[in-house]
């Protein structure tokens, strides 16, 4: 089966030695650079990316071609392309996998994309914990440069590009694009207020495009095969393929490249993908797009509130809004079976956001800590019933009122867990002795799948 699927990013992933320039090149690597710099104008590349309909794979899903067309182009001011390889969203590990497995794909994508945007210096910002990946990328860059695909006058086209890898220092918030730019400027990762947007004032106050590793890695294929071919895959505005990081209680966790549009059911249960829930267990809940998106109980994940099959697309996962839907986000798919405690996991995520808040704006700085403390109390048997509504209220006071979306990202998991699993919170509060026994999980009414 899987061999028939169109693989845009991972077709060559299993080839031994694909991380080296030679092998990558032998399997058609860097042809997109040749095609772009020798036969296309930058605008023509932008046009193909627009036609492809590819949407940002970092989480927000903003159409990449449209973002590129917003880039300001004042005379005499450098422009920058910065690749976001900060990948720190719990549940997401696809960029990590892609960069270490096929580093040249990203390098090739960076060259093609920088050419399209008219950038002569570009950066790949990689989270500092992935220092070994930084070294893999640096090696790949050196190889590409030695072969004439980087540096001055690439392939005699007159186009110059220097590409550098920048390590972060350990901070989830640096995945937020303006925090990332601050960090790249050698500062604390405090997100900037917007406007101005990076497209106008980004790195060093110059026009800048920030794109995710996976987003950029689609561009070689799009240049080679055309935007229309890319758009032919997928459904509606969810075009192309998407890397899904599958984790949790699955038979086969891992990174999968799926054509957007398969059903969630197929993704979880088919042997082509995750192979179902680990033996002897049943699916209870899923966080479908990275820790920031609303958690859904199994039933609502597999079918929308209207009873339709839910698909792995931006639109279908969001069907029902926050009341009954969620988001595709960055594709961090965390499956939880009936042994998982929702309260404990919500507290865990809450601690994560508390820990990762930059602390600049008061709702997030104070609110994330408050939520964590209340959840910690409930989880440890010291909650009271009014804590539940308090949590909902605090999450609402944070949501939408902060400088950057980390505030929302901290609020949604809490609000959605209470929305869908209120019983379980109440059980923790009503029966603290039972709930705090090691390994205890709620066995009340719930629909498993």
């Amino acid at each position: 089966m899987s061999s028939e699927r169109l693989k845009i990013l991972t077709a060559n992933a299993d080839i031994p030695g694909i991380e080296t320039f030679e092998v990558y090149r032998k399997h058609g690597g860097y042809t997109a650079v040749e095609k772009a710099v020798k036969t296309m104008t930058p605008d023509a590349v932008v046009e193909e990316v627009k036609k492809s309909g590819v949407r940002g794979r970092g989480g927000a899903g903003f159409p990449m071609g449209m973002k590129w067309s917003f880039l300001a182009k004042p005379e005499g001011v450098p422009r920058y392309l910065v690749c976001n390889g900060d990948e720190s969203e719990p549940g997401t590990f696809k960029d990590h996998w892609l960069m270490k497995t096929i580093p040249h794909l990203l390098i090739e994508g960076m060259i093609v994309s920088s050419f399209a945007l008219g950038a002569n210096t570009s950066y790949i910002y990689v989270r500092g914990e992935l220092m070994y990946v930084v070294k893999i990328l640096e090696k790949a860059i050196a190889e590409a440069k030695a072969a004439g695909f980087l540096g001055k006058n690439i392939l005699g086209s007159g186009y110059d590009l220097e590409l550098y890898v920048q390590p972060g220092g350990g901070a989830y918030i640096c995945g937020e694009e303006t925090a990332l730019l601050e960090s790249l400027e050698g500062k604390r990762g405090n997100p900037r207020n917007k406007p101005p947007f990076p497209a106008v004032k980004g790195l060093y106050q110059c026009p800048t495009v920030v794109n995710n590793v996976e987003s950029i890695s689609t561009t070689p294929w799009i240049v080679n095969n055309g935007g229309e071919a890319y758009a032919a895959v997928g459904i509606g505005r969810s075009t192309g393929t998407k890397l899904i990081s599958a984790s949790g209680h699955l038979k086969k966790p891992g990174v999968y490249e799926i054509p957007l549009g398969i059903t969630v059911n197929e993704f979880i249960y088919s042997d082509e993908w995750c192979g179902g829930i680990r033996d002897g267990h049943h699916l209870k809940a899923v966080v479908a797009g990275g820790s920031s998106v609303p958690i859904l109980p199994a039933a609502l994940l597999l079918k929308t509130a209207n009873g339709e099959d839910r698909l792995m697309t931006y639109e279908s996962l969001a069907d029902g809004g926050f009341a009954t839907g969620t988001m595709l986000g960055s594709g961090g798919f965390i499956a939880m079976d009936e042994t998982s405690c929702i309260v404990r996991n919500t507290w865990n995520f809450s601690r994560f956001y508390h820990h990762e808040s930059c602390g600049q704006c008061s709702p997030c700085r104070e609110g994330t800590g408050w939520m964590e403390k209340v959840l910690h109390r409930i989880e440890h048997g010291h909650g009271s019933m009014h804590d539940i509504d308090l949590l909902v209220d605090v999450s609402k006071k944070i949501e939408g009122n902060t400088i950057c979306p980390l505030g929302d990202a901290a609020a949604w998991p809490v609000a959605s867990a209470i929305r869908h699993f209120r019983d379980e919170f109440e059980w923790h509060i009503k029966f603290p002795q039972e709930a705090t026994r090691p390994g205890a999980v709620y066995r009340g009414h719930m629909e498993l799948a």
Partner: protein
Amino acid sequence: MKVTIDNITVEVEPGTTILQAARKIGPEIAPPAMCYYEPLKASGGKCRACLVKVTAGSEKDPRPMPKLVPSCITQVQDGMVVENTINQQVLDTRKGIVEFLLINHPLDCPICDQAGECHLQDFAFEHGMQQTRYEEERRTFEKTDLGPNIQLHMTRCILCYRCVFTADQITDGRVHGVLNRGDHAEISTYLEKAIDNDFSGNVIDVCPVGALTDKTYRFKNRVWFTKPVDAHCDCDKCKGDVTLWYRGDEVIRVTARKNQWGEVTAFICNKCRFERKKTSDWVIEGPTKVARHSVISANKYGANKIVPEFARRLAASQYKDVKEGRNLEQLSIQQLPEERFKQLVAPAGESAVAGIRSIQNWADDK
């Protein structure tokens, strides 16, 4: 260009922010600002106290903005329509912001030098809830000295970054900054370094709360017992325009002059601030004209807006002040007997402001 705020239309220059436009209309309309500080570049956008609703983006594109926007850094567009005091979502959100700023804030007003001229007190009085819902442990820090004349009470800091911008923009060597992150973020020098600079004292004036205070003034007095007087001197370092704070015949504090928004109009040097404390050092101009923005001088707090907790704290501070002289360190609100509080504040009725006044009168009688 024209912008309409709470149904009042005003003509402003392009580049004006919503907050500046609202200030132009008047203090009743102006959103509160805890981090924005007009004299400091790049300030604002952090505290979220000034969030407002834009119901129409501009003449050209009259769609409403989906989220509340920080008025201090959002520029007006021609034909923009904004709601501040007339929008319930804005008022509710502001209540939330007060609550967030207070959850980790100490109940220190009775022993805080800023009491009576504290923007957080004002903000809480005007926009806060009746009482806190926070039951968790509060974050605390040790107090430290930043050099011989400045004390840092980090527990009271609201991380507005004003002092950081001040050090960056008006002194020639910043040695303090924001360390750590999230709710562990703190103002610090990291290693015990004294802030030693001719203009370092200005961080005291820009601080909206009692986090940075003048050690030469500490516990000398409560601000409401002092009399501000404008004065100047011939200073070779700064313009020399200051406000002197008198208690009786004694100059107990020197600060920069501030406008009606509590913003310094001309920064002063440390010599003027810390060393010129004799009347003979100064040419007196007359009583400070600008209305003090303090909770005890303004009449802008209506009866229905009172926050009992704050009122109680203030009342307690004054009561204790009088009763126990200056021994304020061990004071806490709980020490004000309920009976006494009722006696002092409740009969005055209408508002805690009046209540506090009555305490003041009572104190003056003694």
